[in-house]
């Protein structure tokens, strides 16, 4: 049986292996060094790798800006933004520099940087609970990885560090303690290759991270009634694997996107547009988007439960679609 690891420890293993393999790799951010990171993904790395795993002030412009500067000089920086919401604090460095500078400088600068960000998992309120992948996916020039399993957390992190592009890796807060099989040694998960997490023919569900977990739970319930849904995990949002999406919808004829982010212009909206362009003839029912209604992420638990797609909501949406 394959070894079991927590999602957080799988990330740590990827970082440790890459730090050992490539001396250009540097890991840094708020509380990342001595403290080992507030999410438990970096424990012991500073002790093991010394000054290559270091603390920065609480200064997001600087954290991502330094990563850009270090990458331009041939290092492989892995910066942490403690919450994915903080991508907005570092807006200039993320959206104007990491994303555009290779292009604006005619390919004359290299930007092999990674930004790790803890994402989603509501309860922290609107400044610390957002899933910001749609903003990143909207921005040409940066890659966006959304690992949903411990194995993918390790494999995508490794691929991100070895990528020559700026890669934003969203680590879901609720997944950090989750356990799953993780290959030992070098493990790389390719970007742009979606994975079918469950096969079926009734409807295609596209979901990632905590919404994938909820969708799979709903699929289990539905299977008891003979409704077999196909669940597709995009793995990376940029590049996005359109072919796998189309292939699945050819079979099922319907699609539900489950997303832990506001509805309007979310990833689900883009997937809907891709389906119209590439799979119009295969759809026999309208697209369904399950997302947070267009309100800021609330704080109170009962309000969070009211807006974030739940197993019940996914199940109900499928039942409506197959009725």
């Amino acid at each position: 049986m394959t070894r079991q690891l927590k999602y957080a420890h799988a990330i740590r293993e990827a970082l440790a292996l890459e730090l050992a393999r490539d001396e250009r790799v540097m890991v840094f951010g708020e509380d990342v060094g001595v403290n080992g990171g507030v999410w438990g993904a970096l424990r012991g790395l500073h002790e093991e790798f010394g000054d290559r795993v270091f603390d920065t002030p609480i200064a997001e412009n600087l954290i991502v800006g330094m990563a850009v500067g270090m990458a331009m000089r041939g290092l492989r920086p892995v910066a942490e933004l403690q919450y994915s919401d903080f991508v907005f604090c570092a807006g200039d460095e993320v959206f104007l520099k990491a994303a555009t500078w290779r292009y604006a400088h005619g390919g004359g600068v290299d930007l092999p940087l990674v930004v790790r960000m803890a994402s989603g998992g509501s309860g922290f309120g609107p400044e610390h609970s957002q899933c910001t992948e749609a903003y990143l996916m909207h921005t040409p020039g940066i890659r966006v990885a959304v690992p949903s399993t411990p194995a993918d957390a390790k494999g995508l992190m490794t691929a991100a560090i070895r990528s020559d592009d700026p890669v934003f890796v969203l680590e879901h807060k609720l997944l950090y303690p989750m356990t799953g099989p993780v290959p030992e040694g070098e493990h790389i998960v390719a970007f742009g290759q979606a994975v079918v997490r469950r096969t079926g023919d009734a409807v295609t569900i596209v979901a990632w991270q905590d919404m994938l977990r909820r969708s799979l739970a709903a699929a289990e319930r539905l299977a008891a009634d003979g409704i077999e849904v196909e669940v597709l995990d995009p793995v990376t949002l940029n590049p996005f694997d359109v072919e796998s999406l189309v292939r699945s919808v050819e079979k099922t004829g319907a699609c539900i996107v489950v997303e832990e982010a506001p509805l309007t212009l979310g990833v689900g909206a883009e997937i809907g547009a891709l389906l119209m362009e590439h799979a119009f003839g295969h759809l026999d029912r309208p697209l369904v988007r399950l997302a947070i209604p267009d309100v800021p992420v609330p704080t109170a638990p009962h309000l969070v439960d009211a807006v974030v797609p739940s197993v019940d909501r996914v199940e109900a949406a499928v039942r409506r679609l197959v009725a």
Partner: protein
Amino acid sequence: MDKSVGRQPENENEILLRIYETAEKIRYSDERLRTMLMSGQVRFNYYSVRGQEIIPSATALWLSSEDYVITTYRGLHDQIAKGVPLDVLFAEYMGKATGACKGKGGPMHVTHAASGLLVTTGIVGGGLPIANGVALAAKLRNEDRVTVVNFGDGASNIGAFHEALNLAAVWELPVVFLCQNNLYGEHTAVELSMAIPSISERALAYGMPGVTVDGNDPLAMHTAAGTAISRARDGSGPTLLEARTFRFFGHSFGDDDAYMPGEQKARAMADDPVPKLRTRLVADGGIGHERVEQLEECIRAEVDDALAFALASDYPEPTELAADVYA
């Protein structure tokens, strides 16, 4: 690494002559570009550097191509002084395929690895966190490499300035924060944006030296830049160097500079640092009139040739649109 760094010309006159050579190249380039823009011969956003020529011309004497300069949209003077070849520089400004960045960056995005002009940003204050990363890379690898990041007075009011200076001091990074205080942030006078008389005072808050120098005084600028760069080079850490100057032609080309008092502008232009330096060289410096004229002839030929090259070059092909978005 260029061993001549740190070894300055033997006498004052030779230092002044070398500063003049660069400053006059900048002055003439700026004049030609504005003339061409005015006539409609070329079209791009331009932020004139006229009046600020001495700062990078004096600073550059302390830098080799192994050292890095980061600059802003008002960067022609920094780019020329760092040694970006004029042909690819002007071609980039004009958006031509032969430009330093294939014509895809324009004046706000110039990079030229061979000369050490690392990057140019259009965002006020945007270069400072980047400079820290570049300087940190040099420090981690024990490289003898100084990074000079240029910015204006306006950038010193932006959060990134604080974030960058703070940590650069903590880590004693080999960086010089060179603030070219031209007395206006876009269209707003500096005294409307800050309550202190000099930007260098801010250095105290970070625990680094803060120095204000007359950026239009060639020898004073040369000395101040040398001190800051030597400090960075020997591992003692960063300096906030405020070089006071004045931009003659408003924020951007075509700017109605009515917000700048006429008297202030007239006074500054009457004290134009480039011809003033020429006079000093010829009258007091013992540099022969003929030698200076010869030099100017060479500069004009070099600039004119580079402009002709840029003008004759083609614009990028549409296929270039999809290139370099990703590695």
